[in-house]
């Protein structure tokens, strides 16, 4: 009955050899391909670096003006716009301006990449049930696998720096926009699509004139979630050498700097709230046609 006493596990030596084999072949892979993969991501690197430089080179009053202006354009609310401006003033006054600019650059670029890849993937998924059943588990993995587990191979391949950090952020933040784009497109009323077909719409007209506009509220909820998740990754990204608000937070954990941790943590929260409120208000405005009543 020894079968039931002890789990029939693999021999310890075999298991060790298996792990070693995987490790060494990945090392081999990263040695031979690492450079070309790094070169492949170079444009991304320059994009991120230059965007960050641009933000840092721009005089601070202009940045605050832009922040307040964009907040107002998105939300049409003076209160929110003033709140955003005051938050940025406080951040600057407390000496966190440069780190905040780095973080804003990272989040903006990450969100941009997630949208650029996530929406087309979501569109493709909504068209094919087979593709959906293939991609959904991948999204599940991206969202639930412990971040350090995929940080390791990324760092092995690309080393420490901005690009691996950006990739880590994107892996974690992309699933919501893919999922919600897919969901939003699938929820579009069948009868409206039939009407679009009956008037002779081709695939592009149907997608851009009918499906995407009607799915926009859901897609926008996805964008919002993606931004939030990207911000949540800021501290972890700092562990692999991404500059920004995460770095001082990491330092404060290691050295028990309570005030430093608090300030930078709250700066991240302030960014999150501004991004969230503005994008939500904007999403709501996109749906104003759903309201009845005659006073719009």
């Amino acid at each position, binding site marked *: 009955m020894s079968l039931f006493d002890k789990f029939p596990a693999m021999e310890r030596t075999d298991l060790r050899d298996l792990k070693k084999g995987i490790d060494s072949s990945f090392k081999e892979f990263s040695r031979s391909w690492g450079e070309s993969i790094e070169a492949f991501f170079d444009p991304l690197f320059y994009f991120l670096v230059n965007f960050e430089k641009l933000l840092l080179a721009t005089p601070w009053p202009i940045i605050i003006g832009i922040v307040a202006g964009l907040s107002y354009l998105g939300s049409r609310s003076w209160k929110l716009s003033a709140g955003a401006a005051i938050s940025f003033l406080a951040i600057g006054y407390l000496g966190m301006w440069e780190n905040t600019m780095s973080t804003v650059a990272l989040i903006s670029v990450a969100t941009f990449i997630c949208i650029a890849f996530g929406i087309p993937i979501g569109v493709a998924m909504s068209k094919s049930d087979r593709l959906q059943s293939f991609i959904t588990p991948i999204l599940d993995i991206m969202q639930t696998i412990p971040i350090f587990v995929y940080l390791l191979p990324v760092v092995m391949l690309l080393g420490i720096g901005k690009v691996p950090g950006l990739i880590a952020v994107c892996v974690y933040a992309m699933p919501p926009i893919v999922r919600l784009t897919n969901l939003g497109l699938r929820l579009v009323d069948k*009868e*409206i699509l*039939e*009407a*679009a*077909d*009956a*008037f*002779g*719409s*081709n695939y592009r*007209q149907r997608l851009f*004139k*009918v499906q995407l*506009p*009607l799915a*926009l509220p859901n897609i926008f909820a996805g964008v919002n979630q993606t931004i939030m998740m990207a911000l949540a990754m800021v501290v972890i990204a700092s562990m692999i050498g991404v500059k920004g608000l995460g770095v001082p937070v990491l330092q404060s954990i290691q050295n028990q700097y309570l005030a430093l941790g608090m300030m930078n943590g709250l700066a991240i929260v302030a960014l999150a709230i501004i991004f969230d409120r503005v994008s939500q208000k904007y999403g709501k405005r996109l749906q104003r*046609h*759903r*309201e*009845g*009543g*005659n006073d*719009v």
Partner: protein
Amino acid sequence: MSDYKIEIKNLYKIFGPNDKDMVDLVANGLGKQELLDKHRHVLGLNNVNIGILANSINVIMGLSGSGKSTLIRHINRLIEPTVGEIIVDGENVLEMDKDKIRDFRRFGASMVFQNFGLMPHRTVLENGMYGLNIQGVTSGEAEKRTKHWLNRVGLSGFEDRFPAQLSGGMQQRVGLARALATDADILLMDEAFSALDPLIRADMQAILLDLQAELHKTIVFITHDLDEALRIGDDIAILRDGELIQKGSPQNIVLKPADDYVADFTKDVNRARVLTLNTLSHEAGSKEGLALDGDLPIEQAMQQMVDSKYNLVTVMKDNKPIGQVSLRDMVGAISRPKATESGSTKTYR
């Protein structure tokens, strides 16, 4: 044959994975229920042959599940047939390739839907312009034409509203304007007024009849409501379980129901409103009666007879007498007929 704008020939639609194999079985008399029980296929349309008259309102009627909505979707091929032909202006719609069918939908046939099918994110004007946008008409021209049709259906001043801000009747007027704006010869109306309340429905029927008097489109109108069919139809086809049961003029349907199913349909109809003097008119005798036009419904003729001292009508056409109808004929005609026979010993013209 050339009077027919659309000819539907030997059309079968069977829903299921092996639909083509089932056609022979159905053609050899396998019924809907047996097909479902034995072969797990659903019979949608069973050997339908209908000629759709040009420039008139063709009503296709049946209860839910009779295949009427399936049939109308074959005309612009929103549903693919199992086998059959649909000839529009000499061309088989069912053999058109993708580009051609798209062009046919853009320019040849437009559609009005039961639940309106409006796009909630577009304003009334933008909804009306949809077909023209798809056709590639420049936006200025499209706006001008759409405004004209919105005006015709009584929606001037509502151009910037969203559909959710309109009542059902107004939404369907947008649907109608959208369909008319494309200038297609064929108008497919799938239970277009069924979702509206009775008063609004009567309004919409009046609007449609008004427009049709001027536009002379070929309209295929689906409904489950016989009163509606009789009111607007120039020609009525009745479907049951995917089969054509009877086709004819409204008077014909009411006077000579082909079977019990149709008789059942027609039993509650206000016959006096459907039948005209023409349908009852027979050889004139020597007696002179009240001179009335042949197109007058019996309901109104009876009223006029009661007001006068005649109990005989001389039926007139272009101010010439063409026959006569007695009060007795009228009473006989509005009493309920038995199925499968003419309902009266009189021979009607």
